[in-house]
């Protein structure tokens, strides 16, 4: 598998795998009322059971794309298909049940008086009776490890706790796809790694596909199955992390910086005259490579 660069002049991007495709964004554009371009000719898809990372610099359109995924914004051009149905036709009113969005700022998301009320909000709107909704909420809170916060006021939580609760609020609705906008930007390493585990858990335990917008490439490298590079409102290249992050030119093109691990490995290879074909992207993998044997701790194939 190699990195796919998208032809910026292609008028369409046909679905590549109809069976597994949950979301298909077909050359969608969105211009904000004041004329600034949010996304432009954006092509993007999400398959069943995968973690996709959207990586790009500030203002590249990551958040705008995410708000399209559950119909909060609709494209002014192009089309978006969720579960095989077009969202622009207007017949899709329950999109929010299928695609859950965790916003960039958790403050925006928590509005109910208590944590429990907030997490129950989605399930209640789905028509669950109160008791059932409460059970769903508790389950979600436990899954994110925030069950002890249940009776707190959202206003008095720390940044990390707010983030966990807002994820629980979406999780409680059991969507098919969960999109998270910069979930770790203001978290300390311990909270961040908790969220990181949660992401892989979501995929493995609940079979939820996860979309993550981030500009932390080290983070993306650690958890993504596929990385999409976003620039000027469109995905211009994508591939598995081990390929994308080893394409220095591509990363520079995207206005990003090569992850530290990659830099270390490449220099190391240059130094010892080794051909750099192992492509480690996580610390564990790099260490395994340094030990001169492939790392087997995770299930990802290193090409």
């Amino acid at each position, binding site marked *: 598998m190699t990195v796919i660069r998208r032809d910026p002049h292609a008028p369409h991007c046909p679905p590549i795998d109809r069976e597994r495709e949950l979301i298909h964004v077909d050359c969608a554009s969105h211009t904000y009322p004041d004329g600034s371009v949010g996304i432009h000719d954006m092509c993007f898809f999400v398959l069943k059971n995968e973690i996709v990372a959207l990586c790009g610099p500030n203002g590249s359109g990551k958040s705008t794309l995410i708000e399209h995924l559950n119909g909060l914004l609709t494209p002014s051009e192009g089309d978006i298909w969720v579960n095989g149905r077009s969202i622009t036709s207007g017949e899709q009113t329950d999109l929010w049940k299928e695609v859950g969005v965790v916003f960039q700022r958790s403050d925006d998301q928590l509005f109910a*008086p*208590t944590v429990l009320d907030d997490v129950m909000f989605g399930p209640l709107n789905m028509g669950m009776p109160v008791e059932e909704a409460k059970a769903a909420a508790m389950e979600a809170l436990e899954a994110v490890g925030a069950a002890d916060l249940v*009776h*707190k*006021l959202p*206003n*008095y939580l720390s940044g990390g706790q707010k983030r966990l609760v807002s994820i629980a609020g979406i999780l409680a609705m059991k969507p098919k796809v969960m999109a998270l906008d910069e979930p770790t930007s203001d978290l300390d390493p311990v909270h961040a790694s908790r969220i990181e585990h949660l992401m892989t858990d979501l995929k493995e335990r609940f079979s939820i596909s996860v979309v993550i917008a981030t500009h932390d490439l080290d983070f993306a490298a650690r958890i993504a199955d596929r990385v999409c590079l976003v620039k000027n409102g469109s995905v211009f290249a994508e591939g598995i992390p081990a390929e994308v992050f080893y394409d220095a030119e591509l990363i520079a093109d995207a206005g990003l910086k090569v992850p530290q691990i990659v830099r270390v490995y490449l220099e190391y290879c240059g130094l010892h005259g080794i051909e750099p074909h192992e492509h480690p992207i996580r610390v564990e993998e790099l260490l395994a490579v340094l030990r001169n044997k492939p790392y087997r701790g995770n299930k990802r194939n290193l090409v």
Partner: protein
Amino acid sequence: MAHIHLEDGSFSLVWVIVWWTAAIILIGISLYLLRSGKKTDSRKITIAAFCTAAAFAIFQVSIPVFGGVHLNLTPLIGILTGPAIGSLVVLIINILSAAIGHGGWSMIGANTLVNITEVLVASSLFSLLGKITQSPFARAATATFAGLVCGNIVMVGIILVSGVQGVTQSPTQILAGLSLIVAINLAVAALEAMVTGFVVTFLYRVRPDILGGKQENPGR
């Protein structure tokens, strides 16, 4: 919500001047009170600015009941900031509204008078009721409803006194016409009282210090 939704050209020049003058006098009194009291508290100014912005932002939201209702929350501003600053805030909101065409420039005087009435009544009733009931919801909702009723009375009074240019009906006939508007306004006022009640209850739970209460270590 008791706004005179009259656009420019409805009142004659004399009455435009009269209501503007009255409003300027009230604003002048507020400014005098603010400046003479101790040193101007710069924190209060920042908060007033944010209240203005919040109230204006909230006005832009259309609540999907009765086919879409907009709330002004003027009484809430009174409850939160008190009469003096509240008067300045409603003046600014009226200027901003006029700028986007919601109410005429010449109506700012009259509208400000109506809103200042709401602010005054709601804020004083809210603190008075504090002696009678502990329920923030009851206090806020009652104060709001009373404020809006008084605002409506002032509004009707202003229209009756000044008359609408070109309308040749007698005051009684005008009153009959206005009563329908007052009825609708009162229905919305009931909704606004409810919303304000919720808002204040919520504030009491989360930030009692904003309402001048003591923070009692809630749910940490």
